[in-house]
């Protein structure tokens, strides 16, 4: 342990020491070669655990560790952090193809300690056939980030995690596995345990002491926009406003800018380098606020984030906890404000209804692929009358189920039989509805808000926080300026709803179309 501590101090300064539980997790994985599930709040320092464990394993002669984590474009911070600990980490994803050659070389010369990939990459033929064999020797350790996704009872449903479970179950004992999550209640922990045998569970308190939680019900979007314009300038430091949709992120950001607040939007439609630039602006406190969808998530670590405001109510208490928990990691006081309005239910209902593609879409996709060789997505879109998004969702589920395989040339039916797991999708849907009911109770709650969140996560340390609006009795509302509401109403009226054109047309359709157009119209 002393060696590891010395290493920590060498990298992070003489005052650095392990936080509660960090050394236990490192020791169990690196020295005892066990399987460990760490449940600790965001900002606790799970990356220190997996990077140091990876380094110790390397010193013992093991090969590089494989870190599986979603949202890899946000892993730059992680890579910088690992460098401070003397750990050489690289990441491979679709947005850094230009770096692959360099990465291949460092894998070949055994100069990589941690390879970070997305769960999707595990099913990618090119990765398995070209990059994976470059790893010299064994894979030292498997790290699974956001491990709550392993469970259907987790708040975040990612089909690719089923692949991870299959993979972990194929590993012999003595290959260390480290699963980490900041948001797992007892039910989720138990479910993960059932799926991955021989798991040690290390669990810490989840309460964030500095956070002051508020819930404010403001029906119309205009009122909420006005509230933001009026109160954001009074909040400490810089922070995040979360919206449920990309459209809302754009709108809110635009209105705030109009009102003289430096705001930028952040969502999945931004290019990789744009996202990086916008993130950096927030990290450097060059903007007051990022208006973001959930795309701003894991891997974003700003210890002095002053506030997290939700423009709409998230789908579950756990998701809310995870997002609001980004604020106040290293400051004494930070604000978490949940605004909720009239459209929340409708949006959440839409998310739940469209989470699983209807059975008939899955069956029609399989029917089409059964009679063909490899088909492109365009080809599938041209044959089946469903939206591209719905088809992609169906293909993704079928792929994880092993019924369909896909590579750069398209999709192909495999020789695995498939039968729909409707019981499972119904169960997940039921669970989503329960979660929705729970967060509805949260916004109505009159007791301590932090305690409510902690209890929802089965945190044994749950207790009244003494800081939230209910603990302090600050339940009154200040009036919002009528002019601001007026301005917001006008803004929303002008911001006519733009109907997004279909972004991709099946090629064949386009060709037919062109043939029927007058020459002048075809460039």
């Amino acid at each position, binding site marked *: 342990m002393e060696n590891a501590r010395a290493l920590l101090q060498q990298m992070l300064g003489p005052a650095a020491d392990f936080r509660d539980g960090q050394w236990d997790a490192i020791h169990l994985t690196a020295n005892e070669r066990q399987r460990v599930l760490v449940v600790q709040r965001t900002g606790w320092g799970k990356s220190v655990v997996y990077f140091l464990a990876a380094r110790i394993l390397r010193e013992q002669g093991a*090969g590089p560790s494989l870190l599986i984590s979603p949202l890899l474009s946000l892993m730059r911070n992680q890579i910088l952090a690992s460098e401070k600990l003397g750990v050489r980490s690289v990441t491979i994803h679709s947005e850094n193809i230009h770096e692959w050659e360099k990465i291949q070389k460092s894998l070949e010369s055994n100069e990589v300690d941690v390879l970070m990939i997305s769960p999707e990459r595990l099913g990618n033929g090119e990765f398995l056939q070209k990059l994976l*064999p470059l790893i010299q020797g064994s894979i030292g350790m498997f790290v699974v980030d956001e491990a709550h996704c392993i469970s259907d009872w987790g708040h975040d449903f990612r089909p690719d995690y089923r692949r991870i479970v299959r993979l972990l179950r194929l590993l*012999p004992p003595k290959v260390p596995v480290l699963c980490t999550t900041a948001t797992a209640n007892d039910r989720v922990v138990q479910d993960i345990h059932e799926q991955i045998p021989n798991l040690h569970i290390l669990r810490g308190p989840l309460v964030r002491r500095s956070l002051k939680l508020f819930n404010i019900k403001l029906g119309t979007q205009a009122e909420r926009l006005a509230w933001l314009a009026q109160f954001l300038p009074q909040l400490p430091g810089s922070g995040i406003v979360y919206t449920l949709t990309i459209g809302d992120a754009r709108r809110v950001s635009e209105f705030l800018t109009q009102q003289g607040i430096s705001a930028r939007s952040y969502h999945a439609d931004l290019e990789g380098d744009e996202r990086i630039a916008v993130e950096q602006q927030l990290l450097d406190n060059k903007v007051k606020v990022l208006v973001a969808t959930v795309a701003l998530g894991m891997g974003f670590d700003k210890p002095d984030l002053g506030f997290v405001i939700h423009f709409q109510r998230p789908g579950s208490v756990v998701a809310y906890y995870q997002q609001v928990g980004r604020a106040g990691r290293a400051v004494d006081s930070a604000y978490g404000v949940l605004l909720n309005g009239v459209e929340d239910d409708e949006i959440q209902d839409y998310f739940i209804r469209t989470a699983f593609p209807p059975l008939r879409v899955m069956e029609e996709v399989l029917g089409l692929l059964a009679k063909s060789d490899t088909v492109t997505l365009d080809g599938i879109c041209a044959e089946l009358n469903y939206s591209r998004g719905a088809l992609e969702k169906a293909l993704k589920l079928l792929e994880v189920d092993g019924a369909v395989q896909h590579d750069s040339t398209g999709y192909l039916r495999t020789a*695995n039989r498939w039968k729909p797991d409707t019981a499972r999708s119904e169960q997940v849907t039921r669970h989503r509805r329960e979660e929705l009911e729970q967060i509805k109770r949260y916004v109505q709650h009159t007791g301590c808000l932090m305690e409510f969140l902690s209890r929802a996560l089965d945190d044994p340390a749950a207790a009244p926080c003494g800081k939230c609006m209910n603990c302090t009795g600050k339940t009154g509302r200040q009036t919002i300026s009528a002019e601001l509401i007026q301005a917001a109403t006008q803004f929303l009226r002008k911001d006519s709803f733009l109907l997004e054109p279909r972004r991709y047309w099946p090629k064949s359709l386009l060709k037919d179309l062109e043939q029927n157009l007058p020459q002048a119209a075809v460039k």
Partner: protein
Amino acid sequence: MNIHNYLSDDGLAVLALCSAFGLKEAPGPVNVEPFKLAEWNQLEKRLSSSSIKNPSSLQGRSTEDLAKNLSLVPQEAERIAELLQRSGRLALDLENLFSHGMWAVTRTDELYPSKLRETLKNQAPAVLFGAGETSLLKKPGVAVIGSRNIDPAGAVFAREVGRKTVEANLPVVSGGARGTDRIAMDGAMEAEGTAIGVLADSLEATIRKSDVRELLLDARLVLLTPYAPTAGFSVGGAMGRNKLIYGLAEFAIVVSSDFQTGGTWAGAIEALKAGWCSVFARDGSDVPKGNRELLKLGATPLPDTELNKLEDLPAWLRKSSKPHATELDLFGST
């Protein structure tokens, strides 16, 4: 698709030790060699008489530990440790293999075809890859043997054997190649029966064909191979899988064979010597010379004029079979 239905923990260890799967295509320094069948047979014996007992208990042991407990020279112990070390990468490759509709079983696993294990014993491959419904492997079938370029009379005969085999509710076993193999299988499929294809190469590419895939999905065809799913064609590969065709069958029928040349001849001679199953050869006025010579060497004649009249082919084959020992005697002391 539950991989653990196919591979036990012991199976995973055997796969790591005996298969090049997961080692393939790795550039850089020369990879450690997986155990050949004869080497594995030896190690398996050592293992079961040691305190380690099971292949899965080899995992995670140091070189010294392995050397001591198995009385091995350090290089061999090192080789075992290194082969097992790749289990992380193997897990990734296996997950992908199963996701693409293929499977792997080892001789220690329950789903390994028991007929093959019993017939071939030490010569039964340690690892098999395959696709399709494994329950089709439970019933020993009727193997149809012959070359890719088959004479018209042979083709008619092969199709009829395929048809009559499945009518008696047995699977047709063949090498899955063009010519005789394919024609016999077609006969079986026309009569809505089942077939076992023992491939010499290219499992992965074969199951991408939509007609093959349809049969696999309908549980009418099962494919297997002792070689890696991506392995390409080689003469050695084609010869090596012959014993699997005979080993999975109760009866083998040679439709057309060249004399003293070609895979059909070599395989049939090997089968007659080893007594893997009862070997028949098509007999008639215009059969190739190879057939006539095989009959001299102990194969049982199946007259082409007879075949059409048979109500129940397997029953006739059973009745006409010679005891295997007779064939062995013909070769004297070899």
